[in-house]
């Protein structure tokens, strides 16, 4: 069986949706060029036509608002932002409008839009071309936020997001595009049935990641196995609404919690995970204080000297665990 890459898995998710749901259409910048979105939308315009795959002017705000509006009228639009940083022009449509449309009108209307936002960083691209702002969006009631870290989820979470009756921000990461796996046949799953997932069993420490940081956690924990450290690894998958149940059960067993996040520390996703666990475990459960690995408190540097220090990687995680814990 030929393995599928993460980026091809996204493509197959789009293909499935476009084939089976005539109300699905996609708009955003760079949809007709491989440069912006890699292979994730390759030839969709040729297969499904430029009416359904719309490469747009440089107008994030209007395009996102238009997607929200179309979603209120029975379509299932997907708006693509090739970089999360560009999407900040669209904050009103996302935060003030889509997130609240169902609530404000007593459930009479809803905005089932999907906003695909790509984290694209590194390569000295600097402060405005690197951000991972998932925590911001996870703060907002009314929008679901998903971050696939596995190849399987890259496809399946996309499908669940687009079929969800609520607005969803689907965040994929360029640094995962080369990951490969064998894909199971497609089975539609409602997004509200999806929760964090255990990717590796262990009983000494619970490590939680999301998106790319899950891959780092998984790789680091496999290496730590040979040092005799048995880590249990969780992938958040759905950041909002956040269901902490399975992670809580894990921490009750391992009694240690480490969260790795590709965002900043202050008011970040790592803080949220730690708080939801700490406020639910009996005092004195934890052997060590809960810990988090996040970005340093500064914008993404352009300099390659600083970039090496800026982003978490496997070695840094292993060193952090070895330095911080005595098992």
């Amino acid at each position: 069986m030929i393995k599928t890459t993460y980026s091809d898995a996204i493509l197959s998710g789009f293909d499935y949706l476009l084939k089976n749901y005539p109300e699905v259409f996609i708009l955003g910048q760079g949809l007709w060029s491989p440069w912006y979105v890699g292979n994730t939308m390759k030839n969709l315009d040729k297969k499904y036509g430029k009416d359904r795959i719309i490469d747009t002017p440089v107008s994030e705000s209007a395009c996102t608002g238009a997607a929200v509006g179309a979603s209120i009228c029975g379509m299932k639009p997907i708006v693509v932002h090739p970089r999360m940083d560009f999407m900040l022009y669209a904050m009103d449509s996302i935060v003030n409008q889509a997130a609240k449309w169902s609530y404000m009108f007593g459930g009479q209307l809803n905005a089932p839009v999907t906003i695909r936002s790509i984290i694209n960083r590194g390569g000295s691209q600097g402060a405005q071309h690197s951000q991972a702002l998932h925590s911001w969006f996870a703060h907002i009631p009314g929008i679901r936020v998903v971050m696939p870290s596995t190849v399987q989820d890259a496809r399946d979470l996309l499908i669940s997001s687009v079929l969800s009756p609520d607005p969803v921000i689907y965040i994929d990461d360029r640094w995962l595009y080369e990951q490969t796996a064998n894909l199971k046949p497609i089975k539609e799953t409602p997004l509200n049935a999806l929760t964090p997932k255990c990717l590796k069993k262990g009983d000494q420490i619970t490590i939680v990641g999301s998106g790319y940081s899950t891959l780092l956690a998984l790789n680091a924990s496999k290496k730590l196995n040979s040092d005799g450290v048995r880590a249990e690894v969780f992938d958040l998958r759905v950041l909002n609404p956040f269901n902490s149940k399975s992670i809580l059960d894990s921490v009750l067993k391992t009694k240690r919690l480490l969260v790795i996040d590709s965002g900043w520390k202050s008011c970040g996703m790592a803080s949220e995970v730690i708080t939801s666990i700490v406020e639910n475990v009996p005092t004195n459960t934890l052997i060590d204080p809960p810990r988090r690995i996040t970005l340093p408190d500064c914008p993404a540097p352009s300099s390659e000297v600083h970039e090496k220090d800026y982003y978490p990687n496997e070695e840094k995680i292993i060193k952090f665990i070895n330095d911080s814990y005595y098992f």
Partner: protein
Amino acid sequence: MSMSVIRAAEIKIAEAKKNRLVKGPVHLGVGQEAIAVGVSKNLRNTDRIFGAHRSHSHILGVDNDLHKLFAEVLGKNTGFSGGMGGSMHLASKSKGFLGSVPIVTGTVPLALGAGLASKLQKSGDIAISYLGDGATEEGVFHESLNFAKVSNIPILFVVENNLFSSHMHMSLRQPLNTINRFAKAHEIETKLVDGNDVAEIYRTSSEFIRKMRLQPEPYLIEAITYRWFGHVDWREDIDVGVARSKKDLLNWKKRDPIKRLSNAMIDKKIWTIEKQHTLDLKVNELIDVNWEKALKDDFPDRKSLLDNVYKYD
């Protein structure tokens, strides 16, 4: 700084990018030099200039420190931004160049504010906002035009219309290939100029800028031009994954702003082919000296990662 030096500097950067000496992305404006050169001739150090992702010419227009540009593009601590920015984040405060960044249209309202500040300060200084045709598609551009007009803000919008926004030709993005209609809609005085004719750009911008300094008002110049390289980095043939039209490129190269000026001056007998050769040699020497110097400089200190996030400690 002259068009020839800006051209040669960018060609040097293109080669370096190809040879992997430059780490970050570079957006080259080869072919578009006349615009920044023509506009900058009218500026003083207290004016306030903002650029975007394709701004080597904009900064060199007012600050001729080639070494600082090369060092910045190479990520060295002697660069315009101390090696913290690279090609996409340039600034030179003492020359009035207050920043260029890669969020499309991001600096347009900032330039507006800079103009508003100089109006309040009654300094007679003006703001320059360089932007591309693609940047006119962001809503904030239109908000800025309106606000500039109703508040009489001394800002000159300089739209470099090179007909492309990355891989997308104007005809795929807008109903017309020109954008000066947006200025007209806001009652802003505007002129459509040949962006490859430095004399015309100079004439138009000096007329507008003279008026702005006397009486704060916004103006908009639309300069039609073409970039010789693809959207990003050093390739001529491919533009963000899409093949470029060879025919268009060749035709536009015939409208090279530097050759046009040189030939016109030779025709008028105020310049000679020999003088042009001598100049070209001198330019190349200038480039090489500054490039070699920048190559030898240091990268920023690893320990400076958290510096300058805030001004307070």
